[in-house]
């Protein structure tokens, strides 16, 4: 028995730092968020009165929150499919055996090193109505000047386009890795029986890439639900709340309006969305996806 105790203590020592930090900065705040979401708070974030689920009830009546949810889901639809499809195309292209291909791979993954702030500032300038390159090209092609980030019809799509660009680097790198993991003799065998490249893509590549593809989709989804930086820099949630995605809404509620309780309720919504996506990933990945 003392031997077991000794082993527990020794093992615990190695894990203690992680456990302590996780407790303070992950588990405690998660519970605290839930607690705060059921309370009214003062400006210091101290709970004042218990309100039960009233915040949540109010959330689903609140027009702002509805708009925010709409913006969030639209943003996810605008960003995730294009990111995955473009990255997949780039990865397929960069998986060809060619001289100097490594250089192209590096270029395609370069946005992984771009911070959200720097990327957003660049895109902000590109969207600039007067001097930005996008309007210049548009005018050169016979279009007219547009206020991309100030027009409620285009603002969210504009932010999404910038986001797709930012996220391609990561998705590309993971998908390329997935492609490189596919045994090359499978393609050689297909060449010998005369399978066309397109059919190879459909019959070999996509099924065998499906675990990676699924992982990239999940990560991109979660990532999209957590978007904040580009909104803060490019639109500040405007115009007319069309770009107030969930995390930006949480931020504004908590750190601009000091309404911590209400913001916490929204944070709980975020938690559940991410949870659902993750659970879907786990169950789906187990069943539907081919592992090698």
């Amino acid at each position: 028995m003392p031997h077991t105790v000794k082993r527990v203590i020794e093992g615990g020592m190695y894990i203690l730092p992680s456990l302590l930090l996780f407790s303070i900065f992950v588990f405690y705040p998660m519970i605290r968020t839930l607690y705060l979401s059921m309370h009214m708070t003062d400006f210091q974030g101290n709970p004042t009165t218990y309100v039960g689920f009233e915040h949540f009830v109010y959330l689903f009546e609140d027009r702002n929150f509805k708009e925010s949810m709409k913006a969030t889901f639209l943003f996810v639809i605008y960003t995730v499919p294009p990111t995955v499809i473009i990255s997949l195309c780039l990865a397929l292209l960069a998986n060809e055996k060619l001289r100097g291909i490594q250089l192209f791979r590096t270029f395609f993954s370069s946005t992984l090193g771009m911070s959200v702030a720097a990327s957003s500032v660049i895109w902000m300038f590109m969207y600039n109505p007067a001097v930005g390159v996008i309007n210049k090209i548009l005018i050169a092609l016979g279009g007219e000047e547009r206020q991309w980030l100030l027009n409620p019809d285009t603002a969210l799509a504009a932010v999404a386009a910038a986001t797709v660009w930012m996220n391609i680097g990561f998705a590309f790198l993971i998908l390329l890795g997935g492609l490189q993991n596919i045994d090359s003799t499978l393609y050689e065998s297909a060449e010998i029986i005369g399978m066309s490249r397109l059919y190879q893509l459909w019959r070999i590549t996509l099924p065998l890439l499906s675990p990676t593809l699924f992982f990239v989709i999940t990560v991109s989804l979660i990532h999209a639900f957590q978007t904040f930086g580009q909104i803060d820099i490019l639109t500040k949630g405007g115009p007319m709340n069309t770009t107030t995605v969930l995390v930006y809404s949480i931020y504004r509620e908590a750190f601009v309006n000091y309404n911590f309780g209400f913001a916490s309720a929204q944070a709980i919504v975020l938690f559940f969305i991410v949870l659902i996506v993750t659970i879907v990933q786990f169950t789906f990945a187990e069943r539907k996806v081919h592992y090698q």
Partner: protein
Amino acid sequence: MSLLIKKISLYAILVICTIIMMFPIGYAFLISFLSGAELLQGKWWPTTWSIKNYVIAFEKVPLGRYLWNSFVVSFIVMVGQLVVSSLAAFAFVFLRFPGRDLLFFLTILTMLIPWEATVIPNYLTVQSFGWTNNYLGLTIPFFASAFGIFLLRQHFKTIPFELYESAQVSGMKHFRFFWYVVLPLSKTSLATLGVYSFLTTWNMYLWPLLVTNDESVRTVQIGLKQMQTQEMATEWGVVMAAVMIIILPTLILIFIGQKQLQKGLMQGAIK
């Protein structure tokens, strides 16, 4: 012949994709050499390659200070993550004790909780610790990382367990085995995690926005946002110069460590 045509067209597509992908960065690079007047005239190719904008960027805002802060914060988080994650990963792979699986389950659980969902209490916690406007508040919350633990655990598992058993037989202490055998054998994974944590910390946005409110510890990303709000319209060249300075360290990291990073990300994430 058709093979040659195929090759040429492949290269053509690759080059076009590269141009599109790299366009925003190249564009920012060009703009960073333009003066305000040139910009208003609608120019985009600099007439003179003057580094004036870069000099102004350092003069107008304490960019040097911000860069230093970002570097310090990223470095501390990198070291902290390496230490904390490798210790935990070691225990999860090599040590057998009751409760280990529960602890591992808790580690997995943290992956289900998005940082943004806990940001409010975390902000209040850090504030109550007196860690706002302080390197401590910017770094310590990020020392423990489930991703880091998984990545290293995955690699530690490839170390033959016989090595551990033979060390046990020869009476080597656990920490000695960790320090002299496991860590040296895992250099590449440690490097991958190091690069990754440096990169993500350098690029962090929401948290430093919340916990810094003066230039003493403010990181370069927040500095850039501030600069962009203040300068607007007239001094875009200067802003772009700052952008170029900020992205340079991380781009270099990516260019050097791309292959390694790819392998590491796959390992930590998928298997």
